[in-house]
């Protein structure tokens, strides 16, 4: 309970810091404040997709259904946060580039990522046998997990993109004002905490749902 109360206060402080304490970035003005929400949301999506991959590996090794529940929960949270990252990115694109969608390499790679994880859920609904579904979904989550770093970190950097340069430059140097960086890292930590909480709730709810299904059979 203390951890949850701390998370509540932490995120409220991040919101106040993002709007009142952090300075605006050059050239972007007030719009630059979206970085404190857009990047952490995208970060949670990546984290969740990679966690789904880890759970897939664990399931194929041990065949425990709790890993299937955790993988499904992680993929669902990842997809939801990926949609949120796309929407916040579209708001930024409209304000800076004049259109919500430009088929920029970053937007195209996120679009492919969304399709990959929508297909994961299509696969799950297509198979009735729970054990077969769990094993096939785990194999798919592992393959999809390998695609995540390429689509999020590599492809958008290979091609010319209108997307603002990453916070860590190609030379490995941090390119951000000190106050902005503190608020940004605090936001990353806060969103990670929200993800851990959501994952925990989803797994517990999933276990209860499976138990109810088994009892009704």
């Amino acid at each position: 309970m203390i951890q949850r109360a701390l998370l509540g206060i932490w995120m409220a402080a991040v919101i106040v810091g993002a709007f009142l304490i952090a300075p605006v970035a050059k050239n972007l003005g007030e719009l630059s404040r979206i970085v404190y929400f857009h990047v952490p949301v995208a970060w949670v999506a990546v984290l969740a997709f990679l966690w789904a991959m880890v759970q897939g590996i664990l399931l194929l090794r041990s065949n425990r259904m709790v890993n299937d529940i955790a993988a499904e929960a992680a993929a669902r949270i990842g997809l939801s946060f990926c949609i949120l990252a796309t929407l916040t990115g579209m708001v930024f694109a409209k304000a800076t580039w004049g259109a919500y969608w430009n088929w920029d390499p970053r937007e195209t790679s996120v679009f492919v990522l969304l399709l990959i994880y929508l297909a994961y859920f299509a696969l799950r609904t297509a198979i009735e046998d729970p054990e077969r579904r769990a094993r096939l979904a785990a194999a798919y989550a592992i393959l999809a997990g390998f695609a995540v770093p390429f689509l999020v970190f590599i492809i958008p950097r290979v091609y010319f993109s209108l997307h603002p340069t990453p916070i860590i430059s190609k030379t490995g140097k941090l390119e951000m004002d000190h106050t902005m960086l503190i608020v940004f890292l605090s936001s990353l930590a806060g969103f990670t905490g929200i993800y851990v909480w959501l994952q925990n709730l989803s797994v517990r709810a999933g276990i209860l749902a499976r138990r109810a299904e088994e009892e009704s059979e």
Partner: protein
Amino acid sequence: MKPIYIVLIVNLVVWAGVFALLLSLDSRIKKLEKH
């Protein structure tokens, strides 16, 4: 009132709503787990 204060208040209200929702889900799941 400056627009940034309005955006700040909206964000805080949204977070308060999300936080309350997560807390209520947590307590409901806890109750079901006890049964």
